[in-house]
């Protein structure tokens, strides 16, 4: 690949990412930690932690468990709530070159619409990523598993914002392409795929689940081939831009997503291991 691979990406409605490499939701907070560790402004986009109407304390520990080539998480969308993000966090993004896309989660259409509405006057927000795929909260997957419900949600959000709306899809479905087509038809500007896979780990000394809620979301290099198949299926089914995410650890594993048709990528769990991974992916795609 070359400069073409890292050229700016137009996601629609005025949102152009300076380059295709982003930090995935849930692995970069709101940017304030990684800002101290790496030059995040070289990256294309930061997709924030999933944010809800009200602050959430998150799930009881243990919240993470390591698996072969991956990790399970059950964070439970711990976040400060949309008002704090709009009032306290967003002003700190003012001078950032990286585009900050706020990931929004909710239990009802009204909650998503409320969050999007709160962000409407906030200039520092570059776009919205609708999280319809969190496996770790009640109702987290209700929209992601049902094309009709997903479309209804997107249409409702579409009605209240002119901002670029990306829909983050769940892989925990029979036909991810059907959900992708439904949200495209309902007015989504782009889709990102995939969120984590539902997984389970047993504490072998006790026979009980390691994670207190029984299951968690699997991420890391173990899921890359699975996610790549899902993203390829989505790319074959929609005309809007697709953002590939799942198990990227280097430029080669990121390039796979571009090869199957994704326009941009997100680096997630690999950032935990090496905060510079996304920058290395960017440099590797360029070189």
């Amino acid at each position, binding site marked *: 690949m070359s400069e073409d691979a890292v050229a700016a990406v137009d996601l629609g409605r005025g949102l152009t990412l300076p380059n295709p490499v982003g930090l995935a939701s849930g692995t970069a907070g709101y940017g304030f930690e*990684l800002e101290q*560790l790496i030059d995040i402004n070289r990256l294309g986009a930061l997709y924030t932690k999933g944010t809800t109407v009200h602050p959430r304390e998150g799930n009881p520990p*243990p919240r*993470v468990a390591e698996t072969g080539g991956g990790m399970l998480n059950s964070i439970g969308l711990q976040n400060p709530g949309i008002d704090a993000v709009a009032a306290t966090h967003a002003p700190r993004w003012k001078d950032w070159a990286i585009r900050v896309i706020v990931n929004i989660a909710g239990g009802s259409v009204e909650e998503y619409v409320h969050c999007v509405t709160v962000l409407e006057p906030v200039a520092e927000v570059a776009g919205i990523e609708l999280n319809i795929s969190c496996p770790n909260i009640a109702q987290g997957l209700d929209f992601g598993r049902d094309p009709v419900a997903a479309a209804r949600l997107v249409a409702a959000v579409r009605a209240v914002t002119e901002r670029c709306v990306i829909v983050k899809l769940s892989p925990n479905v029979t036909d991810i392409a059907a959900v992708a087509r439904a949200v495209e038809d309902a007015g989504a500007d782009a889709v990102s795929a995939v969120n984590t896979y539902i997984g389970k780990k047993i504490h072998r000394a006790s026979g*009980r689940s390691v994670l207190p809620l029984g299951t968690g979301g699997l991420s*890391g290099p173990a899921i890359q081939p699975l996610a790549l198949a899902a993203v390829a299926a989505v790319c074959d089914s929609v005309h809007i831009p697709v953002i590939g995410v799942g198990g990227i650890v280097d430029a080669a594993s990121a390039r796979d997503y571009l090869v199957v048709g994704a326009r941009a990528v997100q680096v997630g769990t690999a950032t935990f291991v090496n*905060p510079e991974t996304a920058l290395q992916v960017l440099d590797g795609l360029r070189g």
Partner: protein
Amino acid sequence: MTADLRRASLETGEVLVVERLGGGILELVARLPHIAATAQPGSFVQLRCGSGTTPLLRRPFSVAWTQGDTCGFVFEAVGAGTRLLADLKPGDPLDSLGPLGHGFSVVDTGPVVCVSGGLGCAPFPLLINELRRRGVEDILVLNGARTATRLYPAERFARPAVPVVAEATDDGTRGHHGAVTDLLAQALQSNPSALYACGPNPMLGAVMRTLLESGAELPPTLEASLEAPMGCGFGTCLGCALPMLGEDGTPVWRLCCTDGPVMPMREVDWEGLSALPGADVA
């Protein structure tokens, strides 16, 4: 509040030795100039175990001590990650991220009591060194373990001069026959200005219970270094939640990696902590 990570950096150093101390306790010594120069008492470092994708995540270790451009880490080979670290040879690269975490509030006047259980010895040499640099000489270490071979050697808690170390073993093979907390009552008679503790959660809970039941005034500085299963170590994954008490005494989660690992013992939700399942280290 955003964690202060300005000192943290990726650094690939060099293994100097992995020393077998007996009882399965290992001391990894590595040349890591950045960590050695910037670690504070209670800081930890995220070490990469191997270079593959399994085990995937780094493992957190307290910085046990620093000397020149080297530092030491005390651990035991209990899982896939620590087994890889145990097999490191002199000259092997060591991939580190740190220093991380909120460390001890180091007092300027003694007496000071340090309570260590098993591998909970790890953060104390660096802490004791800093205490002595500040002129605090009256330092008592209460060191407990299951059996004599698993007691961190007294002379390693500080170099060159050794603080007073009182030992306890569950099986009576050295020192007091019983729990390290049995030694607390006498230690408290000196009215310590600070008590620092590190060890398994049940032991830390027992320390707090013993302090409260003693009726003695609690030391003004009362801190414990805690641990939790950790994803990133720098505050973004939110995986290492610990049960703490908020300002109004209600339970809240705090992050071991950035709010801790050193926490005020008065603010720990000891009931919640004791209810957590044991570590998964297959």
